[in-house]
């Protein structure tokens, strides 16, 4: 039971002329310099790198065991020596050449697979089954078989790289196609798009976020697979790759050079990830608001 009802007071109405209130203060004001610098991702990342470098150098100096854990300066020195006077550059180029070949062939096969999968139902089933079977299979596990079929050499490497790229790219591209919104599909058909033009002018750009993700995953798989495979063999000819460079130096207990090799692997990985792919993303899906 409510004893006394609370009635709101009757109040007069208000009408205010906006320009009679005088000038409004700044509607938008620039941030303080420190805040602006802290907002740059590259600056924050660089800070993390500097901290890591200092920790590395400090730990290496304290442990003082260059055979097991060389310092940053030793590693940089070995890197410089190997790059300028040694075989590091040549080894890296060999690796990248093999990688590019395998990656390109893998992409072409993935494109063929997804085109078949998107146009026929049995194609979809084929792709789904094959991806389910082969995607969990580490490419490196196929290396013994590849050696048997193609012998020691670039062919075997390219084979395992294709395997590592193909399924990741095909899977992502296809799931990108299937997740294009029904409205956008209908808008495309309404305009009169059919067949391959429908795929090229509507499905591919609409699925680009997933396709780029697939390309990135495929690249990462391929790069790791290549280095691992080169560690296993690579002594095939004089033209070994980066993995072989690491293996060779470990055998000679040139630990600083091993670190330099690993550093090269990381640097190339970072470059492709944060320069090449980032540029592609900025020019496309980020600009279009399809990814934040």
């Amino acid at each position, binding site marked *: 039971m409510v004893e006394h009802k609370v009635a709101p007071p009757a109040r007069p109405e208000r009408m205010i002329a906006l320009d009679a209130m005088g000038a409004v203060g700044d509607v938008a004001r620039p941030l303080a310099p420190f805040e602006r610098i802290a907002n740059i991702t590259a600056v924050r990342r660089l800070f993390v790198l500097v901290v890591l470098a200092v920790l590395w150098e400090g730990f290496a100096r304290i442990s003082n065991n260059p055979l097991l854990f060389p310092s940053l300066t030793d590693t940089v020195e070995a890197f410089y020596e190997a790059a300028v006077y040694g075989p590091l550059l040549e080894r890296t180029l060999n690796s990248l050449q093999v990688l590019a070949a395998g990656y390109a062939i893998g992409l072409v096969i993935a494109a063929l697979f997804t085109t078949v999968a998107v146009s026929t139902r049995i194609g979809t089933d084929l792709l789904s089954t094959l991806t389910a079977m082969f995607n969990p299979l580490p490419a490196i596990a196929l290396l013994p078989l590849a050696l048997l079929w193609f012998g020691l050499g670039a062919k075997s490497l390219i084979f395992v790289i294709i395997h590592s790229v193909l399924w990741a790219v095909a899977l992502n591209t296809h799931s990108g196609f299937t997740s294009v*919104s029904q*409205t*956008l599909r*209908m*808008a495309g*058909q*309404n*305009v*009169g*798009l059919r067949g391959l*033009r429908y795929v090229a*002018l*509507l499905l591919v*750009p*609409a699925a*680009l976020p997933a396709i780029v993700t697939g390309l990135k995953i495929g690249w990462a798989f391929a790069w790791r697979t290549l280095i691992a495979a080169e560690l296993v063999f690579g002594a095939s000819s004089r033209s070994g790759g980066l993995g072989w460079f690491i293996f060779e130096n470990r055998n000679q207990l040139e630990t600083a050079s091993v670190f330099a090799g690993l550093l090269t692997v990381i640097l190339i990985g970072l470059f492709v990830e944060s320069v090449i792919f980032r540029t592609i993303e900025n020019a*496309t899906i980020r*600009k*279009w*608001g*399809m990814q934040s």
Partner: protein
Amino acid sequence: MAAGTTSAGGQANGGTAAPLLVVDDVTLQYKTTEHLVTATWKVGFEVYAGERYVLLGPSGCGKTTLLKAIAGFMKPVAGAITLAGKPIERPGPDRMMVFQEFDQLLPWRTVLGNVMFPLLVNHRMPRAQAEKHARALLAKVNLTRFEDVHPHMLSGGMKQRVAIARALAMEPAVLLMDEPFAALDALTRRKMQEELVALWEEVRFTVIFVTHSIEEALLIGSRILVLSPHPGRVKAELNAGHLGPADVGTPAFDKLQKHIHNLLFTDKIETTEAAHG
């Protein structure tokens, strides 16, 4: 009202000329995972050039399915749909459609690029001419300032205006609109309704407009097809060409609104009986 007199004249012309679009006793069915649903049952109507034809009904009356059939996305189980005497086979740019969803624009093209897209895809005109044509239409929907912006930077109302400009750029035989303003806020919606009628005054296109709002039907339509639900059947076909956005709240407007309300309300009782029987 200028809107009232001119559209009444349009209907007088329509009486003598042949209808542009004929929907002849069309029955539409679609499959869900469990059911075969009959969306419309023997629906028939005719649309004349220059009409603002509204399909009005509650959800479940098959009005959107009907529009999709006219667009060519699905085929009637029985009956036929003809546009200028030719049966409709597949989707095509002579029946440009404006959807309810905002994601109907291509996010990878600018506003201008979106309006030019159907023109270029269909090789309707050379690129330079298409660009000029698209700019003219964007000016008509007051988006000149946003020509070079990508769709994700636009508000919902702006996106719908781009979609309308894109559809009109193709100069379709008939413009199909599937509740294009339903996802907008009330203030923007009213503004868009007024703009659409003003645009019609200027360009004189033929439009089929789907809505579940009686008020919107009266504001926009020159002729209104009232549909009953489960499955969709024609309940009435009314003239509303004498009413426009300026007539909201007048006795004539209220009277017709009440009339349609009663039509739909009695329908509700019938369907509950049908569901039991």
